[in-house]
């Protein structure tokens, strides 16, 4: 008889061994509130892209829980980005929502007309001398509340914790692993928002293990039959600060490897193209380039895959794209997780970014960006957020993502089952999931 569920209290939900996770960690309003109070208020989190702030005065609102932050470009320099808590120092009115431009280089409250310069310093307390005791509105007390801000790989990170460690230190375990992919040179092709009726952690966990691939994405499996050894084709890495990643095992079975007997009956070219079509960070342009190889003989000692990569690099060279080193090709299929909620999934000269934020325990707002390396002289407009789409909107969301999100809502509901007890995870295949839960517990004071 499991007595732990009788009482609500986050300490009961701690991860005590790496094989079990309490479902309440996904479903409990108390646990969700604890995450806000103790984790979201302290971590570095990706607020927007530098591309969102091309001009002085541009701003983006970033919300997490009931906290709202304004990320503002206050000068022309690459470092001239600040972040402020979105509240007037008079009566607390939010100063702006969504994204846009603070015009005339002023941030103005629409309630009583208090105003600030783009660097957060107060420029106007409307009627201040007449109505306020001077001690109430001293300049040093009425500047906007500033948040910690940092830039990595053209992404702007913020932290609500004034004492947070430097962003460079926070990212030190994962940044060098991601660096060869050249995310910092990529620009946004599109940006979608998706509403998912599932806990934010669940949204990210679909991208932390390969165990679900055989049944959730049958189009991706080799030999057209489920292979229980398939997840062994991924090597999982857990890093400090809760970051994780997996990469393809060069000795395992993946899209670059020899096929099984059954698979050999499928034309290797067809299978390669079919697989690439389903991968989120692969563009139609690359599929077209690879398709142009159809029917051409594969040179002795080469392979369909090697020829495909050559063709993609040749096309990129024609367009003046500076591709990552060919060595990076060995890591394609890797997925990187920046704690707590950012996924980086590169392929070819592209990258898929995903961020999930909680809206209570049972709902999430997911952002997905597709990035690509620009060709010579190629200009990209300021990214425009499309959506929010429903998680089953196959017209706007890729097949893989619809398939992944299709599991999440039934999981979220099923986890509320009375008497279910702890969830059972594979140490070998699902270790990245447990690792993040353990890091969350460190923030919650449970480890």
């Amino acid at each position: 008889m499991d007595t732990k569920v009788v009482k609500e209290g986050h300490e009961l939900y701690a991860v005590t061994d790496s094989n079990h996770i309490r479902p309440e960690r996904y479903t409990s309003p108390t646990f969700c509130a604890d995450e806000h109070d103790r984790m979201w208020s302290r971590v570095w989190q990706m607020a927007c892209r530098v591309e969102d702030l091309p001009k002085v005065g541009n701003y983006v609102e970033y919300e997490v829980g009931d906290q709202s932050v304004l990320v503002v470009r206050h000068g022309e320099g690459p470092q001239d980005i600040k972040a402020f808590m979105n509240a007037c120092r008079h009566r607390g009115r939010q100063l702006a929502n969504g994204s846009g431009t603070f015009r005339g280089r002023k941030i103005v409250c629409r309630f009583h007309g208090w105003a600030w310069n783009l660097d957060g310093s107060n420029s106007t307390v409307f009627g201040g001398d007449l109505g306020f005791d001077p001690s109430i509105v001293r300049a040093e007390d009425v500047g906007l509340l500033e948040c910690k801000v940092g830039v990595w790989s053209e992404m702007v990170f913020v932290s609500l914790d004034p004492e947070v460690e430097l962003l460079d230190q926070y990212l030190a375990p994962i940044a060098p692993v991601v660096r060869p992919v050249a995310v910092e040179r990529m620009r946004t092709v599109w940006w979608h928002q998706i509403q998912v009726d599932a806990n934010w952690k669940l949204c990210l966990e679909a991208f932390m293990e390969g165990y679900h691939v055989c049944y959730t994405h049958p189009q991706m499996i080799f030999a057209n039959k489920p292979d229980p050894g398939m997840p062994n084709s991924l090597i999982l890495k857990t890093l400090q600060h809760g970051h994780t990643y997996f990469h393809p095992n060069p000795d395992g079975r993946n899209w670059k490897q020899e096929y099984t007997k059954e698979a050999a009956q499928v034309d290797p070219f067809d299978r390669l193209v079919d697989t690439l079509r389903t991968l989120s960070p692969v563009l139609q342009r690359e599929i077209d380039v690879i398709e142009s190889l159809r029917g051409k003989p594969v040179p002795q000692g080469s392979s369909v895959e090697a020829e495909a990569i050559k063709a993609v690099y040749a096309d990129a060279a024609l367009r003046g794209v500076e591709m990552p080193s060919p060595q990076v090709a060995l890591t394609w299929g890797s997925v990187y997780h920046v704690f707590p909620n950012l996924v980086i999934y590169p392929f070819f000269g592209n990258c898929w970014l995903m961020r999930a934020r909680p809206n209570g325990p049972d709902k999430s707002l997911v952002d997905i960006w597709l990035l690509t390396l620009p060709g010579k002289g190629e200009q990209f407009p300021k990214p425009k957020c499309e959506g929010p789409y429903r998680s089953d909107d196959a017209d706007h969301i890729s097949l893989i993502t619809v398939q992944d999100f299709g599991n999440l809502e039934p999981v979220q509901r099923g986890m509320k089952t009375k008497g279910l007890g702890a969830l059972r995870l594979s140490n070998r295949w699902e270790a990245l999931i447990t690792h993040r839960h353990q890091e969350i517990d460190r923030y919650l004071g449970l480890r």
Partner: protein
Amino acid sequence: MAVKAVTSVRVEPLGVTILVEPGETLFDAAFREGLEWPSTCYGQIECTLCATRITDGREHAKPMGEEEQHALKYRYAGDSDPRDLRLACCLELTGGDVVVFKSGVRREQSK
């Protein structure tokens, strides 16, 4: 005309000439060029303090939108006839040479 033209605007009585890009408002161009233009709402189409009179080249002004009309009709509290005025924070121009009159425009003081 296919080519979008920059508009040259002389701001009197200060006597400064600024260039307004296509799609840009007079207000935004002024700040970009280092001027401070009277306002308390800073481009939120509320205070109407940026209201200005076009004294020459009126034909280069794009027509008013609803928000601007509404603000000038119901919120403008100055002495001029609001029918002679445009809000600088809304005013876009189509090229050529324009002269406007606006007291209180000055070169950026701080920084």
